[in-house]
């Protein structure tokens, strides 16, 4: 992980909502946004790994961000989307991974003035995959480091996540 990737940078970000929270990822990482389609579950995996989908012939794993952040099930399933992003492995390889989110909101330009480094949550929040925070138009968005968030899928210690508070 180079420092450049972990520092918040100005640029275009895709913002989506998971429960009441808003998260953003660099738009350059996003490969595709699709309606929720049937996901084939892979047995014996952590519950937040929903399974695999067929993305034009590629087998792509899908992670449910609600489960990942322990936010409970969504009530409104109408606008659920799969955001397919390109994840860089630590060894330089890259692969696609889908994230199930409640709703995709917008693509917007974040100025460097809008961005802040991740605050110190203490023990309350696992901040390993948070690059920073953005405040635009009265909203606070969490910038996700998807390489970290999704790069260790299946290998992250779940207990650390469970201690996380649902509120920012």
């Amino acid at each position, binding site marked *: 992980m180079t420092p450049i990737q972990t520092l918040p940078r100005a640029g275009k970000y895709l913002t989506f909502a998971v429960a009441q929270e808003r998260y953003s990822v660099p738009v350059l990482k996003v490969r595709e946004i699709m309606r929720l389609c049937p996901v084939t579950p892979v047995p014996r995996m952590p519950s937040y790994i929903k399974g695999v989908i067929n993305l034009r012939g590629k087998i792509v794993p899908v992670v449910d961000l609600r489960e990942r952040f322990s936010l409970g099930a969504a009530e409104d399933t109408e606008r659920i989307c799969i955001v397919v992003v390109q994840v860089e492995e630590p060894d330089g*390889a890259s692969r696609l991974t889908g994230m199930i989110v409640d709703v995709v909101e917008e693509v917007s330009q974040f100025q460097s003035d809008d961005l802040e480094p991740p605050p110190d949550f203490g023990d309350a929040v696992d901040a390993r995959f948070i690059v920073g925070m953005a405040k635009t138009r009265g909203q606070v968005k969490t910038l996700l480091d998807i390489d970290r968030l999704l790069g260790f899928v299946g290998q992250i210690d779940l207990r650390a996540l469970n201690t996380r508070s649902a509120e920012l």
Partner: protein
Amino acid sequence: MADTHVDALLQELATEMAFLSPDSAQGLTVMVAALGQLQRLPSAMVSADAMQELALCLALCQSAAGAGLAPPQLDKLQTAFERMANALYVVQPAPEVSVLAQPSARTLPAPDEPAAPAPDEASASAEDDAGRFFIGPEDDLELLNEFCNEGRDLLSQVEQGVLVLEDNPRHKDTLNQVFRAFHTFKGGAGFLGIAPIQLLAHHLESLLDAARKDQLPINQTVIDLILAGGDALQKYVSAIARQLAGEDRGQAIFVATAELLQRVEACLRGEAAPVALAPVTSTAPAMPAVIPSAAVTSARTPPDLPPQTAQPEPVALPLPPSPEAAKALSAVADKPVLAAPALAKPVPAAPDKSAPSANAGKLARTEALANFVKLDTHKLDALVDLMGELVIAQSMVVQHSLVQQLRDRELDRHLRQLSRITTDLQRNAMSLRMVPIRSTFQKMNRLVRDLAATQHKQVQLILSGEDTELDRNIVEELADPLLHMMRNAVDHGIESPADRLAAGKSAQGTIELHATHQGGGILIRMRDDGRGLDTQRILNKALQKGLITAEDAPTDKSIFNLIFLPGFSTAEAVTDISGRGVGMDVVRGNIARLRGRIDITSTFGEGTTFEIFLPLTLAIIDGMLVGVGQERFIVPTLTIRESLRPQPNMVSTVQGKGELIRVRDKLIPLVRLSDKLGLVSQVRDPCEGIVMVVDSGVRSRALLVDSLIGKQEVVIKSLGQTFKHQQGMSGAAILGDGRVALIIDPEAVSQLGSAAEAVS
């Protein structure tokens, strides 16, 4: 350092000089390369006199590079060379200057011969220090890689050819083919300027050339020499390949060849095998005394031997087309033009007039070389993947409900046409990856020959079905297990001739290796007529190791399967020597990874038969689509023995051991897929579901699924990094409706604990 270098160069030059013949380009390339290296030595080491003579030599050689030297020029070259050698030997104070460290001192010898190998920059790094050279940063790694790839092909051709010659020394076509292979190899090495390889290949070529001209009978000595030479070249090639792969980069590549070279020279001079030459087999006859003079004269000064001209150095393009020459040329001709030896796959000579010998079949295999195009395997894989997509996309269109409703006859026709073409296309794309199993089988020839010789056994290897095609990945992966099994068969299966005679068998043991298509896969059968497996000993060993209990009373078949268990591969397990079953667990592992299975049948005292069933390709499997709960899974058809709906009386429960199902009087543990996979299934009573008896080598299992949906071919996809720790699934496939189904690995799934505790 430097003076040994000069010595080596001079020695090489002297050798070449001795073999130079008028009007022949043979050897000149090597000389030009060596002279070029001499010239590039730091001038402090070389007197002006020597330099002058050297330049003269070089000029002479280069002027003659195309057509060879006329006799007067040859004399001139010889005198000049002697004077130069003398002058060089005078100045030998040899300051410690590495030649490599002075790249700028290298002058390119007059490049009037564009294809002359020496001036090539790749040659600059090649240093002949008694069989040692370096791969430097300035070398064209791509060319070297091509050279390695091609070299391996050529060397295996040589090996096969030589083994044929061993049986039938008079087979001209094979001899020519081996000769051509060496020649092409030498050309490649010369182009890259790898002098030690070139020198060795050149010597071996000379040996074969003499044989070609009937000046040297092909006897055991010659065969062994060529095989040994081939092995040495193989070592070079492997060493280069290793360095290309990034290992021990920058280290010298060294293979001891000096002794080999001497032996070849001795052989060429017609001396009987020198002491150093300990023949591998005791049967090697001493060299007949007739050849010497003929061999020597021909090698040195044949006044007008047409075949000599038939050995073009890569430099020599325009050649009088004798039929021999034409053939030899077809193999190498376009190379110098392309200026890249490895780019041009030798175009094999058109199939020669049928060899009317009884050995025709055996000989044919060395000749059966079709025209090839070299292709990056990744491109091939990408093509095959895309084909899979196309087939799925096509079936999605055809089965789309709207399309189905249209009921238009013309559309129907077009769709059918589309289906047909995509299927054909897919089959063709698949066949691109298919290669005959020949190359893997042929490796066995050499192994059996060598093993039998060292163990003083007489073994005959009969190959059949070598043209059976299967996926190239499988062919490659199969080599190791087969070699292993073959070694076992010769080591422990086949008895010594005395024992065999005592047992009322013929002294010569026979191993048959046979490949054939069976069902949707391939069957490889290896049968020996050796001593067979001793069930009692295996049983005792297994009891002793606690692998089974005395009450188990296993069948013969399950006893044989015990040898596949890891840890069973110990000495005295089966035979007194070291135990059949050495590493058999590895063999089974390899085969299981290829989604195949292996069976043993054996009769004590009469022999053992191994049967390996493999899928034709790793890209596609024939799968049984089964339903478990809401999900669908694919079970590889090859692993399924049978599927049935059990009767209530077939199912029994054993406390602590779980459920068993009795199929044809065999008790098979029942594995509930829904439990293993953590799925909710409506089927709780096995009698309402379907039981599939799967077999992966050691034990049978009965997988309980809800329903059988159908049988279909699917393109296998990897599940990827995310699921690399996941067990039980060997991959995924996209079904006709576009959804993904996981492919079950029956063996792994059975090993899983219940999913209840795994999923938290």
